[in-house]
């Protein structure tokens, strides 16, 4: 297994405030790695260190096999970066912005022109290519930034909240682009506050809280981690008194919301058997029966809470 990014004991503080406090993780080649965490958790700081923009206080970082502190330029040649803050040159046109990046990444003039036009088309900016970025909407700017990050066909892409504040179409376009890049074998490091996005896109997810990694795994495994008890949602044809449900051994807890019952159980199978016996006895019917998974959001709240109560 080769890793696109390896981080060991990364520490960074700003005037006594520790932003990143001993972080360890590895990003596999060819995966979308999600980096989640509450505001101020240290995500942007980590991304800036990994992309060689700021220096860590200590720790060892390898990006595409290069030590980012010792060989920053070699590593950066193969990185695409979409920073947190929108930062195009607003006095230049969309095309000029892309070509500027092409120049700084050493893409030849001929390739640069062709690729720039191709990217402008892909990101629905071709018609506005010669307009100054000053007049662009947030979504257009963000799509342009992604196009700028892709001009040199980077192997590894860092995106810091690429879809935050964008409309459905722009976010969709960006997500589709990321999946295409994944198909092409690129590695993607994605910071986001959108847990649904992380759940859909990411092969693995790290949750950082107060500068420390609180959890790191596939979205499914993370969900299993807090699935201590199974939750079942069901509705009956006729009303059911609560105390009768509590008589069933398989049920630990019952909650009612509207006409829905939420039951916690250790054993879904036995619960189902007990319930069918119960409804046939009472001449009642089960109308719907769903087992519910915890959402990534619940995992997120759970793990970030645990860490914060430590200090």
């Amino acid at each position, binding site marked *: 297994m080769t890793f696109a990014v390896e981080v060991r004991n990364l520490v960074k503080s700003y005037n006594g405030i520790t932003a990143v406090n001993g972080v360890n993780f590895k990003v596999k080649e060819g995966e979308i790695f999600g980096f989640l965490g509450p505001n101020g958790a240290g995500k942007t700081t980590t991304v*800036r260190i990994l*992309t*060689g*923009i*700021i*220096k860590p206080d200590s720790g060892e970082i390898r990006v595409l096999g290069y030590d980012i502190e010792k060989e*920053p*330029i*070699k590593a*950066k*040649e193969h*990185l695409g*970066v979409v*920073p947190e*803050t*929108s*930062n*195009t*040159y*607003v*006095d*230049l046109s969309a095309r*000029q912005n892309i070509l*500027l*990046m092409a*120049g*700084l*990444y*050493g893409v030849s003039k001929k390739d640069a022109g062709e690729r720039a036009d191709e990217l402008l088309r892909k990101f629905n900016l071709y018609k506005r290519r010669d307009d100054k970025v000053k007049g662009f909407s947030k979504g257009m700017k963000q799509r342009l930034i992604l196009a700028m990050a892709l001009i040199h066909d980077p192997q590894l892409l860092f995106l810091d909240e690429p879809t935050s504040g964008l409309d459905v179409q722009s976010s969709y376009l960006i997500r589709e682009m990321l999946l295409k890049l994944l198909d092409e074998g690129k590695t993607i490091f994605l910071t986001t506050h959108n847990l649904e996005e992380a759940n859909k896109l990411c092969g693995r997810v790290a949750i950082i809280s107060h500068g420390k990694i609180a959890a790191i795994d596939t979205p499914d495994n993370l969900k299993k981690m807090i699935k201590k008890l199974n939750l079942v949602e069901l509705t009956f044809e006729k009303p059911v008194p609560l105390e009768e449900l509590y008589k069933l051994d398989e049920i630990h807890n019952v909650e009612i919301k509207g006409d829905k019952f939420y039951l916690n159980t250790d054993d879904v199978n036995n619960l189902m058997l007990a319930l069918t016996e119960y409804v046939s006895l009472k001449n009642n019917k089960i109308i719907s029966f769903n087992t519910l998974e915890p959402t990534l959001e619940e995992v997120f709240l759970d793990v970030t809470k645990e860490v914060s109560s430590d200090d």
Partner: protein
Amino acid sequence: MTNVHLEQLKRSLVIMKKDVLIYYLKGPVIIFGILIPLFLFLAFLSGSKNLPIDFLVAGLIGMTMLFTATSVSPVITPWESQMNTLERLMSCPISISTLILGDMLASVIFGTLISLVPVLIGFILGVSIFHPIILVLGIILASLCFSALGLLLATPPTNVPSNVMMVSSLVKFPLVFISGIFIPLENMPFWGKVIASFSPLTYFMDITRYSLQNSSYYHIILDFGVMIIFTIILYSLAVFLHKRTLQMRI
């Protein structure tokens, strides 16, 4: 020069082009650049009626050079930091010396072209140019030197352009008075000459006087040599300090 260095040099030119497009090719910047020498000349002319015109034009070239080469160069970094584009540049595969060299070259183009305005004024007023090639070489070298000074002035990690302007005025104006623009070096007392020798502008003034008046205080080779040394020192110092302070601007 290895491939890596050549590639970085090319990227400096990309930075230079960006600076020219964004920061220099602006109506107000150019007009201001041209007006400054004109106003300086008028002020100069009315203040010192009994000085020869070639002496005045030589001084004018020197002042114009100092002011244009250090006008925009110190504020680009704070500007880019404020607009967040600095973070973008720092994520690109360019070294800090490449970045600084690019900013410097843009300033060199501006300084060189605007300094031709006072040369033109001199031409119109009938000042003869004895050594045109020396003058042009001197102008190019001086714009390199003062652009490097401008970039050195950009190193304090403040993102407020007006702070940088203030600091750079504090450096620039004293230079005007100690460098033999108003009083020729040969008329200065010994201590004046000692102070003047620490100013790169002194040597550029000597080169312009040589070019326009056919006489110089130092040997012309010495003038060029000292200015090259100043340029190297100022550029290296600017790179050294930016390496420390660019981080703080993010």
